[in-house]
């Protein structure tokens, strides 16, 4: 039990929200491997962030063992659509060069393996443990250079919320709504709500452009600006509305429905009471 607990604690520090749910069902034998891998990810991630603008997947940190484990997982779970060597098939695109960030986002948020073909991949319960997600990510990253999983200092919400809010309104709000409540796209596609997404996943989505989302590369929005955007979203996640219940943060439609059903509804009930004849 001791190594298990220690492992989960180390992960909790990184991203508390998503990890806690998956603590059960974890397997022992990979504990040391995972610890090692995580340590290496931090080092590698920090290195990548400091050294170049576009993070490279070729960080020396990924041991061959991690990659081999990832390959096994890939061939068992992903190859049906993406091909045995991730070269792509008619059912799914090639993953060569998508980078670790894309895999960490798609698998880590439960979008992959995909439930069914549709307007866009739906989120569902995450199918892999964190180690397995990382193994898959580094296997795919080993196939070709692509964006890496971002470093902690970019995703922990320690930036300038005001700058992030302004950037979010200009770049993101037209699909995701100003309060990150999500919004509709064409033909059944949609921009999901950002009210429950971890900083790492937000960053990865920006650099990889999953589903219908455009890519916001480092020339477009710098890593520091991305950090600010995450800071703003974390502020919105952590601080509930000062005005009371938010009614879904979807604006006047919810407000109108509320006043008709509950406001006017309750007053009509009171008018009935006032004019009722006493029995």
């Amino acid at each position, binding site marked *: 039990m001791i190594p298990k607990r220690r492992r989960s604690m180390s992960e909790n520090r990184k991203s508390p929200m998503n990890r806690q749910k998956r603590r059960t069902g974890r397997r022992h034998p990979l504990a040391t491997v995972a610890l090692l891998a995580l340590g290496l990810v931090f080092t590698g991630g920090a290195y990548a962030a400091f050294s170049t603008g576009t993070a490279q997947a070729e960080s020396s940190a990924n041991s061959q063992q991690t990659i081999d484990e990832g390959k096994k997982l890939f061939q068992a779970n992903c190859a049906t659509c993406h091909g045995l060597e991730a070269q792509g098939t008619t059912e799914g695109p090639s993953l060569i060069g998508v980078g670790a960030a894309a895999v960490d986002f798609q698998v880590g948020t439960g979008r992959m393996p995909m439930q069914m073909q549709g*307007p866009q991949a739906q989120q569902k319960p995450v199918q892999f443990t964190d180690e397995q997600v990382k193994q898959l990510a580094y296997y795919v990253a080993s196939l070709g250079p692509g964006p890496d999983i971002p470093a902690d200092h970019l995703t922990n919400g320690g930036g300038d*919320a*005001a700058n*992030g*809010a*302004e950037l979010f*309104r*200009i770049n993101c*709000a*037209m*699909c*995701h*709504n*100003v*309060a990150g*409540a*999500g*919004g*509709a*796209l*064409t*033909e*059944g596609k*949609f*921009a999901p709500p950002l009210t429950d997404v971890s900083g790492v996943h937000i960053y990865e989505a920006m650099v990889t452009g999953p589903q219908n989302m455009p890519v916001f590369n480092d020339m477009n929005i710098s890593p520091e600006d991305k950090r600010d955007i995450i800071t*703003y979203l974390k*502020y*919105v996640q952590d601080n509930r*509305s*000062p*005005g*009371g*219940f*938010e*009614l879904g*943060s*979807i*604006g*006047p*439609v919810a*407000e*109108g*429905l*509320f*006043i*008709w059903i*509950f*406001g*006017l509804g*309750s*007053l*009509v009930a*009171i*008018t*009935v009471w*006032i*004019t009722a*004849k006493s029995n």
Partner: protein
Amino acid sequence: MSTATTNAPQKRSFTAAASVYVNERTSIAGFVKELGRKAFPDHWSFLLGEVALFAFVVVLISGTFLTFFFQASMAEVHYNGSYVPLKGVEMSVAMASTLDISFDIRGGLFVRQMHHWAALLFVAAIGLHMLRIFFTGAFRKPRELNWVIGFVLFILAMAEGFTGYSLPDDLLSGNGLAIINGMIKGFPLVGTWMSFLLFGGEFPGTDIVGRLYTLHILLLPALVVAFVALHLVFVVVHKHTQYAGPGKTPGNAVGPPILPVYAAKAGGFFFIVFGVLALIASLFTINPIWNYGPYDPSPVSAGTQPDWYIGFADGALRLIPPGWEFVWLDRTWSFNILVPIIAIGVFIVLALMYPFIEAWVKGDKREHHIADRPRNAPTRTAIGAAGVTFYAGLWAAASSDLLATHFSLTMEGVIHALQAVVILGPFVAYFITKRVCIALQKKDREIVLHGFESGRIVKLPGGEFIEVHEPLDEYERWRLVSFETYEPLMLRPNSRGKITFGQRLRAGMSRWFFEDRIAPVTKGELEAGHGEHH
């Protein structure tokens, strides 16, 4: 009362003394006596207008508080208040002062939310009140003008709302103004001139908030107060309508007198409305401008909608198919904007004029003080249902994107479905409503003639089973038989022996209104029906 004029120093209570003092100087007693003895019929649906009135009072009170702190200026400042995600952001003074009201002035956010919730309730209560008036035929002579005044109030309330929520100069309201700007510019020839006149130059300019503020706190409230006063004077002059019942005639009004019973009830009801609004305002966020941020012409948020009462206009714009804008004679003709404006304009004018249209079709010049049950005017009720469907379709279209995301539909599917609702829905609603009304009238006839099913099964000596029908009591029967029916007008030549187009039109309309009808049970039928003993 009789002692009031004697100057003998008698022992009088303070109230009596004060009343006498006031009356000797104002002669108010006659007025109070007259008004206080006005009877006000008791029915829950007669209080809907009061909900609107009381919501408006709450709007006035809370709005006055807000004017102490709001600054209607579009000068640029850097926000330096308590809300962290906007610190240092450049915005207008209007936005910054609204944020200060929300975060740095004690009770400010509560009053702001109360003002906004009360405004939404004000317009919603007007809407429901109008539906009650329409479906019970309470707009008939002599009340046609009061219908028009009420309708003008509805439009003024929408204008009040729109000018109000545009004041904070936040992103959402700025987008609303951008749409208004686009609609104005959509008018051929004069559009651009009108836009520049309104905004004092190119949109958005630096004038609009100040101008809207003057409209919002001076001109429009003055008009609303004036029209509300006129509306209420007419209610007193006409007496209130009442539903049919024993002892209730077109010449009387049956109910508790205004003083003391009704005034106490209404006064108490004001505080209930105030309390409900205070509760909502303290528990539920409305218009979180801190999320929207300051207005900037470039971003538009997903889920950008106007407040509910402007929704129908936004929905009309959303439902127009692409490609209705073209260049002709070196001018852009924006039929994507003109068609919805014209459609909404026609709808509003028809609703405004309906009392006169119906009176003309009926050729009815009598006064009506007994409110109809909706089923007893099937064509009017069906027209109302068609209108409600049309409006509701437009209204729903304003939330097409949210319908798509929340019900996992495609946006295109929602739009096409709502296009069908707006164009075909009114006909379907008309037909169904008319048939339902006529069926209900038939059922009423059946009940009056044969009583209602008691559920008591009796075996007759011959072995036959029958269900006993209980006859109605007289009070209930009165309610079911006392209504009027009209017959289609006969087409007759006028004094010069001609049948004019107007007469043909009127006869056609009259046929449409009254061809299918159920006559109320007559006394003769009733007596004959009693003989049968079902």
